[in-house]
C-alpha cells in the first residue's frame, strides 16, 4: 500500500532531528508538525516568527498573528518575532536546518519547480526561492505522479525552476529517494511497493 498524506508527513518527520529549526511549507508539509513526537523542533514562519504554535481556539484569533499562509496561529513560550529582512537573513544564512516543501516537478539533479505553470495564473514565488537556496536541507513531499499518472520526478524539469540543484530528499507516496552528486537513489519503499515499482513510475534515471 502506498503511503497516504499523513504517512508521507510522518515519514518526513523522521528526517527532523532534536534541536532543529525547521520551515514547513503549505499542504502536506504542514502535517509534519503532527508527527515530531518528543523531538525539540522549532518551527519558523518566514513572515517573521520562530516557535510557531497551533491554530487558536475559536474566539482567540489575533489579526496580528498569522503564518506565512496567512492563517491565524498562536505563539509558544519559546516564540520570538522579527522583521522580514531578519527572517530571510536566517534563511539565506543557512541557520534554518531544513525546509519541507511541496513540488510540481523535481529533476534527478535536484532541480525544483513549484511556483509557476506557464499559461496559468501566476501568483508568485513568495519565499520559496529564498528557502530552497538558503536552508541546510530541502525535503520535498509530493505524490510520485501527477493526476494524469505521469512521473513528477524527471530527467529535466519542464516548468520554470524555483531552484537549481537544491533538493536533497524526495518523499512520495511510493517511497523515499535521495539526490546526491551521483544522482537519484532509492532509500526506502512504502509498504508493498518494490524498487521496480518506483523505477516504473519514475521518468528520471535512478542510480
Amino acid at each position, binding site marked *: 500500500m502506498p503511503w497516504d498524506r499523513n504517512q508521507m508527513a510522518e515519514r518526513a518527520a523522521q528526517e527532523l532531528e532534536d534541536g532543529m529549526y525547521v520551515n514547513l511549507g503549505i499542504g502536506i508539509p504542514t502535517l509534519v508538525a503532527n508527527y515530531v513526537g518528543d523531538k525539540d523542533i522549532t518551527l519558523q514562519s518566514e513572515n517573521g*516568527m520562530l516557535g510557531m504554535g497551533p491554530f*487558536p481556539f475559536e474566539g482567540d484569533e489575533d489579526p496580528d498573528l498569522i503564518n506565512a*499562509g*496567512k492563517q491565524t496561529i498562536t*505563539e509558544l513560550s519559546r516564540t520570538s518575532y522579527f522583521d522580514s529582512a531578519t527572517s530571510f537573513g536566517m534563511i539565506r544564512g543557512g541557520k534554518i536546518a531544513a525546509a519541507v516543501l511541496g513540488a510540481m516537478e523535481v529533476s534527478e539533479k535536484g532541480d525544483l519547480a513549484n511556483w509557476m505553470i506557464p499559461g496559468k495564473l501566476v501568483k508568485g*514565488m*513568495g519565499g520559496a*526561492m529564498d528557502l530552497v537556496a538558503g536552508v541546510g536541507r530541502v525535503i520535498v513531499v509530493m505524490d510520485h505522479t501527477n493526476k494524469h499518472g505521469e512521473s513528477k520526478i524527471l530527467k529535466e524539469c519542464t516548468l520554470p525552476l524555483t531552484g*537549481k540543484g537544491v533538493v536533497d530528499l524526495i518523499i512520495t507516496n511510493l517511497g523515499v529517494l535521495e539526490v546526491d552528486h551521483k544522482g537519484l537513489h532509492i532509500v526506502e519503499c512504502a509498504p508493498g511497493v518494490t524498487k521496480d515499482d518506483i523505477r516504473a513510475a519514475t521518468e528520471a534515471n535512478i542510480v
Partner: protein
Amino acid sequence: MKKVYSSAAEALDGLLRDDMFIAAGGFGLCGIPELLIDAIVEAGVKNLTIASNNCGVDGFGLGKLLDTKQIKKMLSSYVGENAEFMRQYLSGELELEFNPQGTLAERMRAGGCGIPGFYTKTGVGTVIADGKEVRTFDGEDYILERGIFADLSIVKAWKADDTGNLVFRKTARNFNPPAAMCGKVCVAEVEEIVPRGSLDPDHIHLPGIYVHRIIQGEHEKRIEQRTVRSREDA
C-alpha cells in the same frame, strides 16, 4: 520638530505626486498601513510604483489603489488573492516585477542602509536571474540584486512615541521596518501614540530616525484566513 499629525491626509500633505515610488509595509493583510492607503486613494495620485510583498485583496489594502487604477507597477513576491490585480495584469494595464520574498525584504533593508546592490544565491538558475550579473564567490554562483530607494515609505506599527520610535506587535512587524528604512520620507500609522519616555529604550524595534511623520488611528485589521481548532481537540 513636530512628527505627530492629526490625520493620514495631513501627514501625507506635500509628499504625494504622480509617478512616485512608494514602499509599503505589511504581509498579506497583516500590519498594512490601511489609513495611509485610504488617504492615497483620496489624494488620487496616479502612475504609482509600489514595492510591497502583496497587493492587498479585492477592495481592501492596496487592492483599493487597484480599483482606482492608481498603480502602474508592483514589486511583489505573491499576488494570489486579488482578482482585479490579475485582470489588470493580464490586460497589460499593470506591470509586475516578481521578487523572491527575502530578496524584496533585503532590497529594502539594503536601500535603507545605503547599499546599492548585494549578491545573493536566491534565484540562481531561475528566471529571476535573467539579465542580472552573476558572480562566483568561493565556487558558488550569486546574482546581483539592487537596493530599493523609495520616494516614500508607508508603514503600520503598534505604538509610537512622539519622536517616531516604533514598536510592532507579533507578526505584524514583517516588512514594516525594512520598508520604513528605504524611503526618503517615512510616514507611520500606529494604534497608539504614547508619551515620550514610556517606551523602554531597549524595546524599540525601529528607532525614530527612520520615521518622519506619525498618525494615530483606528484599524480594521481584517483577517485573511481565519483558522481555528476546537477546544475538544486540545
